[in-house]
């Protein structure tokens, strides 16, 4: 069963189309990274998943429920750390944890006390005195404290220094490993997505342009240097989608494709080409190829 399924989801704000025919599948138990430039539609997707807004078209289910219909019951099963949020500055860390627990209909229990040994936050202090990094950690603490089935994090490490970011990601990885938790993670920091996510989706202009496992993307995306025979060119290549091509000379091309190597070699051979060289690309370069295409 998938934790999240988006099929052909669109969302418009007046004349502006934030999402257009968006499709996404998040397997249960995975750490899923949604990546895209600013304005690609990541936050809108998350708000739809939480039932904070309704899609204009398409079908969306989260943990088997429809967010726009079962929003309240669904949110009880989700932990959420928003991108741009504040916590009530007059409350202490412990008070906000208690307040949140009561909204979820539970109490500050053993799980919360165990998490305190992980986060080591000064819970007796007012939130107004917390640094940005401490607030983000408290956000994750709050989200994990109610034992959610799905954790949704909207650019959670944005603006954090490398030490706090590393601590944040470490805690996230440890806690995810401890329980059967699905994590949906939106970010444009490629290194952290590559580090902790097992599946990624790239977004551009309101829809996904790629969804695959991180390893598969890195393994399958290759730059092939191909020499085509007389009367042939890259236009003759069938069955594989060419992401980018660059002429090196009269008959040689650098062709970038996302495909199994065997399949790519066969496709080039069928098009009268000979593969001279195969190169891999770093993950961030692959991401840029998709979002800039």
């Amino acid at each position, binding site marked *: 069963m998938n934790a999240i399924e988006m099929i052909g989801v669109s969302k418009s704000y007046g004349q502006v189309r934030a999402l257009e025919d968006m499709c996404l599948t998040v397997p249960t138990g995975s750490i899923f990274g949604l990546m895209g430039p600013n304005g690609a539609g990541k936050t809108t997707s998350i*708000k739809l998943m*939480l039932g*904070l*807004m*309704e899609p204009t078209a398409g079908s969306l289910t989260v943990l088997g429920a429809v967010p726009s219909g079962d929003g*309240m*019951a*669904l*949110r*009880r099963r989700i932990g*959420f750390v*928003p991108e*741009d*949020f*504040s*916590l*009530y500055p*007059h*409350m202490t860390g412990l008070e906000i944890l208690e*307040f*949140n627990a*009561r*909204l*979820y*209909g539970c109490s500050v229990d053993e799980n919360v006390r165990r998490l305190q040994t992980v986060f080591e936050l000064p819970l007796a202090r007012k939130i107004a005195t917390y640094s940005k990094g401490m607030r983000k950690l408290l956000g994750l603490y709050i989200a994990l404290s109610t034992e959610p089935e799905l954790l949704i994090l909207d650019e959670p490490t944005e603006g954090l220094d490398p030490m706090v970011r590393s601590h944040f990601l470490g805690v996230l990885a440890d806690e995810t490993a401890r329980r059967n938790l699905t994590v949906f993670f939106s970010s444009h920091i490629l290194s952290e997505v590559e580090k902790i996510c097992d599946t990624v989706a790239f977004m551009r202009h309101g829809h996904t342009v790629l969804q695959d496992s991180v390893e598969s993307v890195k393994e399958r995306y290759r730059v092939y240097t191909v020499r085509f025979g007389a009367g042939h060119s890259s236009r003759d290549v069938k069955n594989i989608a060419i992401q980018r091509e660059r002429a090196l000379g009269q008959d040689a091309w650098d062709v970038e494709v996302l495909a199994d190597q065997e399949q790519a070699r066969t496709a080039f051979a069928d098009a009268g080409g000979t593969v001279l060289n195969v190169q891999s690309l770093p993950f961030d370069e692959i991401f840029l190829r998709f979002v800039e295409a």
Partner: protein
Amino acid sequence: MKALMWKELRENRMKMIIGCVLLSVIGVAVSIAYRFFEGGIPGIGQIPPEYVDLIKKLLPDFSNVNAYLYSQWFSKNLQQVGAILAVVLLSGAVAGERELHTAIFLFSRPVSRGMILASKVIVLFGGLVLAVLVSTGGAVLGSAIIGKAPQPGFVLTATLHSVVALLAFASLATLLSVLVPDRVKAMLFSGGILIVLSVAGQFKPLHWLNPLVLFGSPVLIERPVPQLVPIVVGVVLSGCMLWTSYRMLQRQEF
């Protein structure tokens, strides 16, 4: 619901305490000041005799403590300071959450928007009503101190009218707090609407627009029984504005 109400109470307690203390001090001061007006308006002997009759016609008969409290407390200080308190308390109800970026946290919890709005309305309306009751109690106490206690029936009726009117003002501020994502703007809009309607209502053909008529007419002084029309209009208006606030909040996207 209890958790939400506790949060509202903590967040707004200083505003409520300051409002309550300020209104109470004014209430006590106004009622004690009756000592200076009981025997007539000080210095009226220096006014040319041709104007004295005119002034006496325009001013209430201060020999009656009910008339004094009606004109100086219920339809002046309580009306004005109470209206400011209503607008200040309720304008930040939803707009404040948006402005401080806490809305996304609150609305992504497993609670309905209706519960969130209801908790705010219950606590803040409660604070406003408490301020009216305590301060009016202070005004009655002040009158008792100088030995001029007002008629209980009059005090109860005038307080009922004041509560209904101020809750209608508070409902308007709640609606604007939902519609306008900025506390100060919501405050200025709701205050502005009340002022414009009050000024427009001074002209006879537009008298029905005057929100101050919800406080009841001076007939209360002589006949202290609830006036049905302002009470029903006040309650219906409040209900409609709160319902609209709820519907608008349901439709809003965060």
